[in-house]
């Protein structure tokens, strides 16, 4: 049985300017120990998908309109707050993009780090602190015994992200959701953090959902990748297939618009136009107005996410019909 199965998730934001369909019918599953990448541009709904699972969508204006998220037999979207608390922060943890704003600047690292332990386990403060020191050492912070009493501002950005990771992993979760954890960091520090996530994953055997807009990061880290566009999954496959045989026109266009280190072309391929406004109803395929292959029926028929080959799903009518 899968560790996490999400079915028909729809999260809308009801604002004065209309209803934003941030996530509009997302289905996926995740096995134990697996690494799943979710790739998409800003506004594609990749973060909101994970926020919905974690119960972090502010309601109102947000509302989960439909769907289930079964985590080991418990529906995270419809369980009691008590059941959710037993899972969130213990069996499922999350790290965020900006380690500057996700740590409390008024509290010492020690207090923030051991909080999940004090909440979820029957443990004395002294033992919790010992575990905290071990956790900091595990993420590569030297002199943990002293530095655990520092405040967040005494750490650099990369170090803060290490503290965040230590905090997320201190309860030995089965699933870690990482929302763009390296976007705010320099490349050399990004490389350190990616190595660390890989190492911790192997040690703890946990599953990871890795949200990013950087296809490069995904290629070395993930087993499987999902590409999102305008609140929906447009393609999902194992990493090699998605990189070497992408099917959906959006995924293909995304690949071609990266200024790769391997090739120096004169002109970069560009996707014309902009992502659609998800507060307006979208007829047919959301990508059709920007798609070089779009046919008349793409603007009329809503393309389903269908299995193209075992394990490879994609949502393009023309690919499904074998035309492109």
């Amino acid at each position: 049985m899968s560790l996490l199965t999400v079915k028909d998730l729809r999260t809308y934001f009801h604002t004065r300017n209309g209803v934003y369909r941030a996530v509009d019918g997302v289905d996926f599953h995740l096995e134990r120990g697996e690494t799943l990448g979710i790739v998409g541009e800003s506004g594609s709904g990749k973060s909101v998908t994970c926020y919905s699972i974690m119960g972090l969508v502010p309601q109102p204006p947000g509302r989960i309109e439909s769907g289930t998220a079964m985590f080991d037999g418990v529906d995270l979207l419809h369980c009691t707050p008590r059941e959710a608390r037993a899972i969130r922060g213990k069996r499922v943890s999350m790290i965020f993009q900006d380690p500057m704003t996700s740590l409390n600047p008024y509290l010492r690292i020690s207090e923030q780090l051991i909080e999940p332990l004090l909440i979820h386990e029957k443990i004395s403060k002294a033992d919790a602190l010992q575990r905290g020191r071990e956790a900091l050492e595990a993420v590569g912070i030297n002199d943990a015994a002293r530095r655990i009493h520092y405040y967040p501002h005494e750490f650099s950005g990369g170090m803060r992200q290490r503290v965040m990771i230590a905090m997320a992993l201190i309860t030995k979760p089965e699933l870690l959701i990482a929302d763009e954890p390296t976007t705010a960091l320099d490349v050399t520090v990004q490389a350190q953090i990616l190595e660390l996530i890989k190492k911790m994953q192997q040690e703890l055997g946990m599953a990871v959902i890795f949200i990013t807009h950087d296809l490069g990061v995904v290629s070395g880290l993930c087993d499987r990748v999902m590409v999102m566009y305008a609140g929906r999954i447009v393609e999902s496959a194992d990493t090699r297939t998605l990189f070497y045989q992408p099917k959906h026109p959006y995924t293909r266009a995304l690949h071609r618009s990266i200024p790769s280190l391997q090739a120096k072309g004169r002109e970069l391929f560009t996707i014309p136009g902009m992502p659609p406004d998800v507060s307006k109803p979208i007829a047919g395929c959301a990508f059709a107005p920007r798609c070089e292959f779009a046919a008349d029926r793409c603007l009329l028929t809503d393309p389903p996410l269908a299995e193209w080959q075992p394990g490879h799903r994609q949502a393009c009518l023309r690919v499904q019909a074998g035309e492109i």
Partner: protein
Amino acid sequence: MPDPILELRDVKTYFPIHRGFFIKRQAGTVKAVDGVTLSVQRGEVLGLVGESGCGKSTLARTIMQLVPTTGGTVVLEGKNLTQGSATEIRRTRRDMQMVFQDPYASLNPRMTVFATLAEPLIVHRVCPRGEVTTRVARLMETVGLAPRFMQKYPHEFSGGQRQRIAIARALALEPKVIIADEPVSALDVSIQAQILNLLAELGRKMNLSLIFIAHDLSVVKHISDRVAVMYLGKIVELGPAVDVIERPRHPYTRALVSAIPTPNPDLERTRQRIVLAGDPPSPISPPAGCAFHPRCLYAREKCRLAIPSLVADSPTREVACVRLAEI
């Protein structure tokens, strides 16, 4: 034939650090830019890369004379800007313009596109008032915006469109040099490609010199003719863009290139990656000798003693590493 439009000689920009509230005293200096010698040719795209805090943005501001220089000279077409009066500097600003990273913060939200683009034309008296509207319309077309959006405000545009407005503003005075400080970092990949193409095309058409600052090496390689790699206020490697990124010589450039994740799973899983330990050191108290030595794989005793200077490694390449011949 070399035809430098901009020449920097041993440029230094230091900032004092003050301690104390009532009685201020200087407690140290941040050497943000520490002895940069560089020239930019007419029509050339020079990429400037480095991690955050390495001084690349300060260097840009120093060139623009937005911060006072501590030492060295900035020469634009034979005019020494570091010794110019305020009026002279204002006049030379026509020839040098800047595009910033965040198109949300660098445009005035209370000014329409027309007001934003007309302001430099009016201030510098580029054309008679009656012609301003046609000039603005032409500028908008140059950067791929429809002139009918002239009366709209920045919030009505997307990030990519705002960056186009910022580029149009920079072009308004027909400058000879444009400094673009991380112009695509805040944009999505599909939009990033549009802006990169636009900058490359404008550079070619108008024979502009472009200093392109970024931390993303693949972007820099794509757009630049030459690239300069900065570490802690100094240039550590300088050479043709493709050459530097495909065959990096300085240990820092090597690590930087190897740290970039590539969208190629097979390569990504097999290649040997140099993961640097630690963070870049603080520019307040830089390490003795070569600033990179505490993180360098090849560091020896002598790296702690001498500050390496940028020396020619080949006719086109300059590298600042004392062990260059040995590694």
